[in-house]
């Protein structure tokens, strides 16, 4: 039983890495800042969650898992803050996408 959980955990970690590689690929591929923010910032979150769930499965129910859960909660609270503040900084400095955006 533990063997199967171990295997599934390793597969989940692999899937998380694939998601993260996709995030890096799109950060290199897209050609304007706002697309990069929208895609990468949070395709990365999917990879993060998958990898942590894989680690939780490998470890079983222990204090290691509980600490990982704590990390998940803190990361879910703080990582959108930094993305939001970067996007807001670009927007407030006058970086725009296209002409038909209304300004007030």
């Amino acid at each position: 039983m533990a063997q199967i959980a171990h295997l599934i955990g390793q597969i989940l970690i692999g899937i998380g890495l694939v998601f993260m590689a996709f995030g890096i690929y799109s950060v290199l591929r897209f050609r304007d800042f706002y697309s990069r923010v929208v895609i990468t910032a949070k395709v990365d979150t999917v990879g993060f969650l998958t990898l942590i769930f894989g680690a939780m499965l490998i470890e079983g129910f222990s204090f290691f898992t509980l600490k990982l859960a704590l990390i998940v909660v803190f990361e879910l609270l703080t990582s959108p803050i930094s993305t939001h503040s970067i996007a807001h900084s670009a927007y407030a400095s006058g970086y725009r996408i296209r002409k038909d955006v209304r300004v007030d």
Partner: protein
Amino acid sequence: MKQEASIVSSITGLLYPFIIVFGIYVILNGHDTPGGGFQGGAILAVLFIGRYIVAHADDFNIGRAHNVEKALLAVLILVPVVFVFGSLSRRFPQYNQVYLVFMNLLIGFKVALGLTVVVFRYAFYEDR
């Protein structure tokens, strides 16, 4: 200005007590996990810095913090002089743990106050 910063300052406000608890954990458990006075104190100092950045709160009393820090230094010198150099540690080995925790706490609060005073003073001085 307040309306604009609202999302960041709300979530940071939610995190304040968690940062304090984590800082105290790093200070208190310094004697058997990595961490200790300096690291925990720096975490507590980052809390005040984050508060200054996010909420633009400059209500920190530098003079009083500096006085508290001087008093902590006096205790910090006194305790090991009595305990370690006065060979009490060899006579009462069961109080060793208490001594370590107490010293870590003292160093932690001293470093937190010291770093906060340094950074605030520098930021304020450059501001005006």
